[in-house]
């Protein structure tokens, strides 16, 4: 039995990203800790309720527990919490935000734009440079994300609707934003999600480790269609991805 299987016993979903494995491991540490406390306290409670029921114990004791066990337990809990913070929480989060592979030439950059009730994914195109956007240029029919046509980086940018395709094994940085209200881009098997806040572009990054096809969930209440704002995440082999990437048509018409 492996250590992390406690999460599987709690119906943890499939995890298919690099940092997801570390997160899953941390969650397993917590679940073992919580389980130990719950079982210990639970058995203690049941024993007390049985042992000190009025029928068995007609006269109560004034002093009750005089040992310092609870103090030791409390100190133990604090030590575990300190270990969790220093050993897991701080470094893992620092890795999420400070170690983002911004300069890695291999990185794939995508923007995810939420709106009621769909996701538009904005790919950088052949030049690997994401073009400028301007919300005042958004036009539902011709320019769904408000690309700035004067920007040379924007010329080859392409979009997909509700279809996020990424390659296995390459780091992906997704800039998450929204046109209207707050949405949440949740890639469940990637162990990651990010609020999509209008007016802000917030990056998240991960490295997929398995190919497959999964649901993308909207994680923040965004209106009547929130429950059905489903999109698809497809993780494919690198070669297949390159072919797909090359075959996409730029969104802006050629001049």
């Amino acid at each position: 039995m492996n250590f992390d299987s406690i999460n599987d016993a709690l119906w943890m979903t499939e995890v298919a990203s690099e940092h997801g494995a570390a997160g899953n491991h941390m969650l397993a540490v917590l679940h073992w800790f919580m389980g130990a406390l719950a079982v210990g306290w639970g058995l203690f409670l049941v024993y007390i309720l049985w042992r000190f029921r009025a029928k068995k114990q007609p006269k109560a004791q004034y002093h009750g527990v005089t040992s310092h066990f609870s103090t030791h337990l409390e100190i133990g809990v604090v030590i575990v919490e300190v270990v969790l913070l220093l050993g897991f929480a701080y470094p893992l989060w620092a890795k999420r935000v400070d170690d983002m592979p911004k300069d890695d030439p291999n990185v794939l950059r995508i923007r995810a734009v939420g709106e009621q009730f769909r996701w538009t994914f904005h790919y950088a195109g052949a030049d690997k440079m994401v073009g400028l956007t301007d919300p005042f240029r958004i036009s539902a029919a011709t320019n769904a994300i408000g690309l700035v046509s004067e920007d040379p980086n924007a010329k080859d940018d392409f979009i997909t609707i509700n279809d996020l395709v990424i390659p296995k094994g390459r780091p992906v940085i997704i800039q998450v934003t929204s046109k209207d209200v707050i949405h949440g881009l949740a890639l469940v098997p990637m162990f990651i999600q990010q609020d999509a806040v209008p007016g802000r572009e917030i990056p998240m990054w991960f490295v997929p480790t398995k190919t497959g096809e999964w649901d993308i969930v909207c994680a923040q209440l965004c209106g009547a269609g929130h429950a059905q704002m489903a999109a698809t995440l497809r993780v494919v082999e690198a070669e297949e991805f390159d072919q797909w990437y090359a075959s996409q048509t730029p969104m802006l018409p050629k001049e």
Partner: protein
Amino acid sequence: MSAEATLHDATGHAHDGHDHHDPPFWKKYIFSTDHKVIGIQYGFTALVFMAVGFFLMMVMRWSIAYPDRPVPFLADLPWFQSWLDADGKVTGELYNMFGAMHGTIMIFLGVVPLAFGAFGNYVTPLQIGAPDMAFPRLNMASYWCFFLGGVLMFVSFFLPSGAAKAGWTNYSPLATTTDLGYANQFWTGQTQWLFAMALLITSSLLGAVNFIATIINLRAKGMTWMRLPFFVWAMLVTGFLLLLAFPPLEVAAIMQIMDRLVGTSFFVPTGLNVAGQPFDVAGGGSPLLYQHLFWFLGHPEVYVLILPAFAIVAEIIPCNTRRPLWGYKVMVYAAMVLGFLSFIVWAHHMYLTGMGTSVSTFFQTTTVLISVPSVILITSLLISLWGGSIRFNSAMLFATAFIPMFGIGGLTGLPLAFNNLVLHLHDTYYVIGHFHYVVAPGTIFALFAGIYHWFPKHTGRMMSEKLGQLHFWPSLIFMNGIFLPMFFQGMAGFHRRAFDGGAAYQQISSQLFMPGDSVFGGIFNFLFGRAAGQDILMIDLNLIMSASAWLLALAQIPFVINLFISVFNGKKVTSDNPWDATTLEWATPTPPPHGNFLTEPVTYRTAYEYSVPGADEDFLPQFVPDKETGAPEPAKVAAKH
């Protein structure tokens, strides 16, 4: 101490009063300034609202379990039909409306008024030996602000727009852009939610200053700080939380009202594009500003919900174990630390709004720190049971169940303290399970315990123990039936606020829970009338949770019957102190008259002197002088403790 004599005296006294000096009915029972009447008004109003909140939830749970079937019963009611779609099914819009209002009603119109408004108001002045609250008319104003706020919330359901539907957190820009199509923007659910919240917060503020002033100034002779029952301490800390945490949300509500009505854009950023059209605002606002203001209230609010629960349980456990509260002083300090820390953890609700390492480190640390006083409080209650002679009446059953139920709620909060784990668990059912364990089988069980415990003081009659047991056991089972499966669904990636219970996210919802040929699968398929051998998927857990919710409603029937029948037919108490308790409220006549005490009460010792070695009885009330107790050197015993 002769309890009978006091009782007799009180009855005679009350009869005299009725004929000659009583104020008119409306002044005595409606616009009353008596803290006990106001407490009962708060309690009754809050229970009615909790029933409304529960009803909303039952409709939501139908939609989650059976999204493709019309709602039974309600689909035939003309007034309800207009909310449903043509087939009588719940729409996403209605679900959001009921969801937002379930949260709002349960928290702001149910639990807080019942815990703080009702129990706090009724019990606090009695326990400190005061004739009333420090500002009785402020107290009355507080109730009527609350009542008006409640009426506005309730009325908003019947406006053309329906009630608010942007979640109980009411995040902008959704809250600002919803329902903008209605010509009269003032009378929309979204706007009225804000006005109602402003009233409710005003009510809380009036209550909070009153509690603080009362506890500090009106303590009876001898009632030193460390002789205060823990209940009073918890109310004092709660009072400060309300006083300091609620104004930011009142400000946020007013700013959001202005965003909606007069075209400001405090919370609306530049360049918003709604439904394919540029949104006509000045812009420059920040949606995250609203979240900060909201959660600056929102997190202390959690402790406003839980501290009164600890307060009630800490009164009931010593009384029914017949031994002192274990670690009273440490609990008092823990409650203060808890109150302080609750002001600096709010952004853990905002972990996924783009936090850098330093901010995240700060909030992860404070969030983990706050678990320390919480663990101290719950452990002290648990250890208080050790060495007791436990009397399992209805109040004690609920109070005992509070410990493990709050324990589950607290433990499952631990993973949610860490930014990195929130990447997976954020806004999933794991979170819903966590906070409902804290508030529903946690706080609400404590509130039930309080009702069973103090009912005889107010009515002079006991509630039925049999009906109490019939209320407790099914409630315990079905509460867990609703909330336990949520952790599994959360781990599997189910997100909240989906009216179809996650059906649209097929790949997630169709994960296997149990094979159909397992024992569980067999029982499940039989109970829900499904084909034998059919596999149980994660989404099928919705059926268990929804059925538990409806059965939980049935489990409340014995309580309602008990409450009303016992007022008229309950067994009469034979003493002013039927539970042989030690705190001052049991020194008053039953029910306590206007002004509470017949003679000015004096406090002689700490609050929980049960089973003192050498004493005549197994309890030494705070109000009985040393020479009458029979204890050899009681002053020494008290001091040592």
